[in-house]
Each structure stands twice: as structure tokens, then as C-alpha cells.
């Protein structure tokens, strides 16, 4: 059963646009798939290699801007820019990693945070190239969501399979060794600097591709949107940790949950409160609904706090713990 779960999931995902024809849900699924790609990237560098990145937006934005500039400056179809976006993100990751990988732990994380901000400033200030805060507008290629969906799906599947393959290989052993103890890894003949670079570049490539996809799909970017610390970098971390740090399917679960939760709050539990208010005609519930909807960022914040406290290894990582809570699980309860 366990072995077939991924295939089953894949089949469902392939059939999804045929089964659910409404644009709204397709749109949400495209976002989910995009976040799977970003989450997978984050997981490689942070989850497996242990170099927590607070700066995914730097790569995401670079990818998005590459696609945007391809379209506006070079008149090349932004689809070509998908790969180019990944490569451009690597071009940012490369010098950054080269310089900053002498830092460890939280200090590397801070450096990525700084990179994030620096990239945003550059995109803002370099008006001649990027248009500054005016941003970049392109006209989307397709009206229907279905092509975008399948492109996103292909990317997501490739990302997950790619990560799985990498993690089963020598690189994977090396990444985890680096996470566990860098000095020991170095003494075992692992070129930690090189492999951290490889890991960062894999992450950057995936995230950059996701950025290009975003540009293609949304048709609009500006520095605040794609270099956003909260909406991209932190969200990437959340996808990673909610789903499960250092697990292959963690980002898949994380992306799904984060997008769903986001939408859940934004729409007031999918209109549940509004419906209830209409049904009962209660003013109190209408007010409540309003507050719930306004509290979606708050909800996010609380989710972060709760997940870290209760499921520090994410849903996939702490799956045993979760099944342990369920009365039917019968799993051994972990002792306090």
C-alpha cells in the first residue's frame, strides 16, 4: 500500500483538471504545485544539508525576473526562460554560496536573509533594467489554466523525483553528513564547501524555475512580490517544516496544507461562517466571520507556533507521533 501511494497520488494529480473543471480550484492547485517545487528546493539545502535558508525569495525573484526580462527586453518567450530562470538563480547562488558558506548555522541563515533583502533593493533601485517598483507586466500565453497546471505538475514531479534520486546517491549521503557534523564530514574526505554549493545550487535552480513559472502564470511581478521575505522566503520555510524537514514527500504535504490553510482563512473557512450567518441571520456570526477572515495572517503565525511546538519535524517527519495520537493508531505513545 505504502509503495503505491505515490503512484496513486500521481494518477489523481494527472486526472485532476479533468475531474475538477472550475478555474478557482485549478488555480489553487497550480499554486500548490509551485510550492511543492520551492519546498523541495528548500528541503534540499535546509532539510537535508542543514543550511537553513531564509532567502529563497532571492532565487525565486531572480527566476521570475529572468523570465520577465526575457519577455520584455529580449522578446523571447518566457517559457524558454523557465530553464534560464533556474540558471540565473544559480548564478546568484554561486557567488553567494562561495562567499557565505564559511558561515555556519544560524549565521548562514542570516546571510541568506540579507541576500534576500539586497536582491529586493537591487530590483527596486535598478529601474533601468527592472522597471523598479513599476514591475514587469507580460501577457499570459494561455487563457485556460490546464496548460499551466500540467507544466507545474511536470515541474513538481520532476522536482520530487529528482530530489529523491539525489538523496539516494552519494550526494545525498554527503548532504546529510554535512548536516550532522561538518568537521566530521570534512575529515571523511567530503569537500563540504563543494557539496554545500551543489546543494544550494540545486535549491536555487528549483526555486528559480518556480519563479519563472510564477512570472509566466501570473503575468505580473514587482520587487515586493517576488522578493518578499514573508510571502516567499518564510512561506518556503513553512512549507518545508509543516510538511516535514528532510523528507521526500514533506514539501508535497506542506505545500498542500499551506495553500489550503491560507485560502481557508482568507475565505472565512470557505464561506462556512458566511453561510452559517445567512442561515441563522445572526449578526454575531457575521462579525465573527469578519474577524476570522481578517485573522488569516494571525492564523498563519499561530500555525507556525503550534507546528513547531507540537510537530517539530513536520507532518511527514512526525507521522508516527500523529498516528500515536489517534485512538485507532494503536501506536506506542511516546513518553513525555
Amino acid at each position: 500500500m505504502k509503495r503505491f501511494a505515490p503512484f496513486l497520488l500521481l494518477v489523481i494529480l494527472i486526472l485532476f483538471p479533468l475531474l475538477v473543471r472550475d478555474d478557482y480550484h485549478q488555480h489553487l492547485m497550480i499554486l500548490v504545485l509551485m510550492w511543492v517545487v520551492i519546498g523541495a528546493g528548500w528541503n534540499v539545502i535546509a532539510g537535508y544539508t542543514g543550511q537553513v535558508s531564509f532567502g529563497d525569495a532571492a532565487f525565486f525573484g531572480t527566476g521570475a525576473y529572468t523570465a520577465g526580462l526575457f519577455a520584455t527586453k529580449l522578446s523571447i518567450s518566457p517559457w524558454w526562460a523557465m530553464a534560464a530562470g533556474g540558471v540565473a538563480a544559480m548564478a546568484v547562488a554561486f557567488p553567494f554560496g562561495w562567499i557565505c558558506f564559511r558561515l555556519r548555522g544560524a549565521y548562514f541563515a542570516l546571510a541568506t536573509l540579507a541576500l534576500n533583502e539586497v536582491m529586493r533593493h537591487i530590483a527596486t533601485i535598478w529601474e533601468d533594467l527592472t522597471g523598479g517598483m513599476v514591475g514587469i507586466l507580460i501577457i499570459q500565453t494561455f487563457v485556460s489554466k490546464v496548460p499551466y497546471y500540467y507544466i507545474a505538475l511536470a515541474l513538481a514531479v520532476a522536482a520530487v523525483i529528482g530530489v529523491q534520486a539525489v538523496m539516494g546517491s552519494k550526494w545525498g549521503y554527503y548532504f546529510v553528513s554535512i548536516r550532522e557534523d561538518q568537521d566530521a564530514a570534512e575529515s571523511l574526505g567530503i569537500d563540504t564547501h563543494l557539496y554545500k554549493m551543489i546543494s544550494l545550487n540545486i535549491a536555487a535552480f528549483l526555486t528559480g524555475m518556480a519563479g519563472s513559472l510564477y512570472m509566466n502564470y501570473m503575468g505580473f511581478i514587482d520587487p515586493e512580490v517576488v522578493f518578499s521575505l514573508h510571502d516567499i522566503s518564510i512561506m518556503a520555510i513553512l512549507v518545508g517544516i509543516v510538511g516535514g524537514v528532510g523528507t521526500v514527500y514533506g514539501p508535497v504535504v506542506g505545500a498542500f496544507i499551506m495553500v489550503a490553510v491560507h485560502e481557508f482563512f482568507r475565505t472565512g473557512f470557505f464561506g462556512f461562517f458566511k453561510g452559517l450567518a445567512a442561515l441563522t441571520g445572526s449578526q454575531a456570526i457575521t462579525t465573527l466571520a469578519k474577524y476570522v477572515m481578517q485573522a488569516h495572517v494571525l492564523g498563519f503565525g499561530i500555525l507556525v507556533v503550534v507546528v513547531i511546538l507540537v510537530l517539530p519535524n513536520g507532518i511527514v517527519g512526525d507521522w508516527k507521533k500523529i498516528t500515536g495520537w489517534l485512538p485507532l493508531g494503536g501506536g506506542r505513545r511516546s513518553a513525555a
Partner: protein
Amino acid sequence: EGIKVGIILPLTGKLAKFGEIEKKSFDLAFEEINAAGGVNGKRIDPIIEDTTGKPDVGRSAIEKLIARDKVVMVGGGYSSSVTWATIAVAQQRKVPFLVNTGSADKITEQGWEYIFRLNPPVSEYPKGFASFLQNVATDVKTVAILHENTLFGQSGSKKFKKQCEKSLGLDVIMKEGYEAGAVDFKPLLVKVKSKKPDLVYMVSYIMDAAMLIRQSKELNLNPKLFVGGAAGFTLPEFQKSTGAAGEYIFSATLWTPSVPYPGAKRYFDKFVARYGTPTEYHGAEAYAAAYVIADALKRAKSLTPRAVRDALAETDMMTVFGPVKFISYGKKTQQNRLPTFLVQWLNGKLETVWPKEVSTAKYVYPFPKWNER
């Protein structure tokens, strides 16, 4: 069963303040319209969705409005980025979208037939001020432009610089952007002071605006003219947080309660009475948009997006925000064209001082030096 109209606004996140003002104005207007019999006897049911100020979320919102709620048209949008991301969906789905705040020029330059814009594009904001420079402040020769690094600040200041150099024959001796939210503007202002410009033109939101003025006072920086480019310098908070220092500051603006349009002051008063806080031009845009929507729905042959779109295209009416008529000029299509004004803080009140025909008070020019007041 009412007529469903979708409104998308940033109700949470950084832009929530202005989104909230617009939401309240929409609510106010639709309540009035429904109380007055609605649209041919039918209620208008606005469905207001939160974009959180982000394009992708805005997109989720509009997808939902169109696909699930099946609205006949959409309004709102607020920031240019969200507006852009969402109007593309509207155009593709063939649902009319009335933009009332998003000011990037490109929004109406695509030739999209389902997209209408009520407010002027950012490039036209300083029109009123330009005529003041040509007619009154003719001894102004040199200009320093300071702007926040936002869409509004960057494109507004760029357009203004071009205008100064091309059509007004002024010398722009300095143009500098800054990151909104700086703690201390003195280094910037010291530099301005050392260059001695005649005019200091600033595109800033409220609090940066207030800090700039207060610190100019501290530094005793005395140009002939201090002018704010819309946004920050006209809001009550500006006056509150600059106090006396705000006196004599000019600003180019789209709307104040004292504009010569019927109902403008009444809208302002109603808003204050209802919500206890003042409103400003964003609110007026929203309030006017609600009436334009109602008008179009009334005239629409049927309640389908197509028919509503056709009715919108025929709009010709007066609102609290000025006359509304969607025309084509330059690269723009279905764009409403409006004059802009120059206002000045005089005795703690914001008075319209230019164009002369609509002025509520006489301007004070040149700017009285700080230490001579």
C-alpha cells in the same frame, strides 16, 4: 436574489488601512443605492474578497468570484500589482472590471475591452501643479525631487522630472529615492539644503511626508515652494503629526472634500459620521465607483457580463470624484480623464488653491521662511 458584484481589496496586510477605507466607502454607497431601490428593484449584493495586497492571492480571489460566485462584474483592485494580476483574469474570462485605484499607466494601455479605469493614471497626477508653476510660481528655476521607492514614488517622480525638463523648462538639480520608513531624513535634507533648490517636490506617503517636513524645519531648509505629490501630504494624519510645521505646504491631489463636485463634501461628512474617522481620495474613488457600477447595471440590457460591459462603456455621469466617461486618448483606452488640483494647508485646513476657478482660498507663495514665522 440580489445582483452579485465582486469587489477585491486588501483588507489585511500592509495595505489594509486603505483597503479598509475603500471597503467602508463601498459599503456606504451600496447601502445608499439599495435603500434607494437598488437596481431596477433588485438589490446589489457586493461580495468583498480580501487580496491581502498580494497578486497571487488577488488572483485566487478573482478566480473564486468569477468561477464560484458568478459575479456580473468586478471592482476594486487597489494596488497596481494586484490590479494587474487580476484584470488579466477578468479580461480572459470576459467579465468587466472597473479599476478605481490602481494607477500604473499600463493598466489601460492594453486595449482590453473589459477593463475600465475611473482614476487618472499616475503620470497625470501633477497636471494641476504644472499649470500653477507656469502661471504663478514663474521664478522657480531649480527643482529637487525626493520620492519613496514604491511604484507610486518611482513612476510619479520620473514623470514629473520629464515634465519639468521638457515642458516647464526647469532645472532638476537633484532626484533621489529613499526606502519608505526611514528613521532619519536629515542626511538627505542636508544635501538638499546645500544645493539650494527653489522647489522641493516630494512623493511620499503620510508618515514619511510628515518626517520630511518636520526635519526640514529642524534644519531650517527654506525653498520657495514645498510641494507634495499627492499621496501623503493631504491626509489628516499629516496635519496631526506635523502640527504647525505642516502650514503652507502644497500638494498635488486628485480629490479633497472641497473639490467642486456635487456630493463630495456630503460623502465626506457621512463617512465621518458613520465611521468616526476621516476619509480621503481612495475612499472617494471607491464611493464613486460604486455609483458607476450601479449606473451601468441599471442601463445594462441584461444582467450578463457582456451587457454590463457594454453599459459601462456608455457611462457618462457625475460622481463625487468628478465626471466619469471612458474615452480613448494616447495609448489608453476606456480611461476616465480628470483634472487634478493643487491644495495648500492654510490655518490647519486643506484648501484648494489651484486651478483658480475652483479655489477655496488664496494661495500663499512664496513659502514663508521657518524662522520668520
